[in-house]
């Protein structure tokens, strides 16, 4: 069965390869926003050289890391599942001889891998070239290992989360507005707009306990070397715990939802 899921993921990866122009266009958008936020950071750091433990170089790296990873962890405007529920196609997916959630999960893993190579890497390289902030130092293998472990957990949290608000379509037919709101809330609290270390203390404390911190904030802090040692292990634990909890919730809700399915012939 595992072979089947891996094949699903690979197919999703290859399917994505076809949309070459769409990816280049998206890449341009990521770079444009990277440039805007870089200038915002440069302007802000004129008045003080450190904020929340970040200097300008850290902030620039952070900006470009976020632009690189956002498509890997939480695709904005992902309504693929919702649309199959609306069109009724979902019935064919439900009757496949595999688990409904793991099927979508594998597809999305394939896409995330695609975006890691074809979106994240070029975006970050563009940032390095445009703003010359170099690779994050130190080039410590433990740091990279931790990042490579934490990023997939973030991506999987993202999959569970967007599956959750997509599946709302079983109850509300037009759930796209809800989905946009859910996405923006997650993006705010994972530091997509303003990095969490810039948040006021009390808000940062709240954000730390939300599942969204694990999406992008935790991998990013590890990448920048701001999270090391025991605190890193604890954060990783919290991130993994949220992944388990969200996955259990998604599976429970899916069971509830699929019980309601009434397929119309035609």
């Amino acid at each position: 069965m595992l072979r089947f899921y891996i094949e699903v993921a690979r197919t999703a990866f290859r399917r994505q390869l076809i949309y070459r122009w769409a990816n280049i266009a998206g890449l341009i958008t990521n770079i444009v926003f990277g440039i805007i936020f870089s200038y915002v950071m440069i302007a802000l750091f004129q008045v003080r050289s450190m904020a929340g433990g970040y200097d300008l170089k850290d902030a620039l790296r952070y900006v470009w890391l976020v632009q690189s990873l956002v498509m890997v962890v939480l695709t904005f405007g992902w309504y693929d599942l919702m649309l199959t529920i609306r069109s009724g196609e979902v019935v064919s997916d439900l009757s496949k001889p595999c688990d409904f959630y793991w099927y979508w999960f594998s597809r999305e893993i394939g896409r995330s891998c695609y975006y890691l190579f074809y979106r994240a890497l070029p975006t970050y390289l563009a940032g390095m070239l445009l703003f010359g902030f170099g690779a994050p130092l130190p080039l410590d293998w433990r740091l990279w290992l931790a990042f490579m472990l934490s990023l997939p957990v973030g991506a999987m949290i993202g999959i569970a989360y967007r599956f959750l608000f997509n599946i709302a379509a079983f109850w509300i037919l037009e759930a796209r507005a809800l989905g946009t709101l859910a996405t923006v809330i997650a993006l705010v609290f994972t530091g997509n707009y303003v990095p969490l270390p810039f948040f006021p203390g009390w808000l940062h404390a709240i954000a730390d306990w939300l599942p969204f911190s694990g999406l992008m904030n935790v991998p990013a802090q590890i990448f920048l070397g701001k999270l090391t040692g025991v605190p890193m292990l604890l954060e990783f634990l919290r991130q993994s715990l949220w992944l388990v909890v969200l996955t259990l919730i998604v599976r429970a809700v899916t069971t509830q939802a699929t019980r309601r399915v009434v397929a119309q012939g035609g």
Partner: protein
Amino acid sequence: MQEILSDLRLYRRLIVIQIRGQMQYKLNIVIDILTYFAVTGLEFVTMLLYFVPFPTMLGWRVGEVAMLAAVTSFSFGIAELFGAGIDVFDETIRRGDFDRVLLRPVEALILVASSEFRLRRLGRMTQGMLGFALALVLLHGVDWTPLKLIALLMGIVSGSFIFVSILLLGATMCFWTVQTTELTSSLYYGGREMLSYPITIYHQALQRFLLFVIPLAFGTFLPTCYLLDRPLPMGLPVWVTFLAPVVGLGFASVAVWVWGFGVRRYQSTGS
């Protein structure tokens, strides 16, 4: 003149039909507007968090940046409301619907522009207005003069014209590329994002671009500077603020002319 008036009447009629259609699902539309308001409001408030660790952004205080972002949001909101049909034009082309539009004895642009009108976009305009109020509170008020009010209103409308013109230029590209090029998307959304901050933070080349190539800065940045008694960028004299309508209409005319050129060159997609 007679023709333009009848075109406008038709446009109004088509928009009213759209509104009436959407009002059939009242609860739905209210939820949509509220959600859109929440989304844009959340993004707005989050941006202000920059000013927790940093007191100013290149000399701009939190209230001033909030004012700028609110004005931009409102101007963009108007553009979104009226430009939706142009925004989805690539769909129209791909489905081959544009051939039908051309068969009708009416100006094609009117039909395209009125083919969509999304009431939920009122959410962003509401956010812009509340953001404006919040900015006034943060600034402890502004020294209003009649000229400032005029400059602001002219700027907002001109800004909307330029935003819609960007969409129109993107739509024109669809005649050749069929798919909408995200280049316009980057300009449209990226432009909004850029104009939410003082343009003086950007590279000189980028500032010139926003003033003289895609003159979005005339729409919101210059009037906001004038409103807040700040000097204009690049040493421009103050009266330049009042050129906004000329610049806006000029840019729109260019966009309409390019569009007309595209329509004449249009060959169907063959699907």
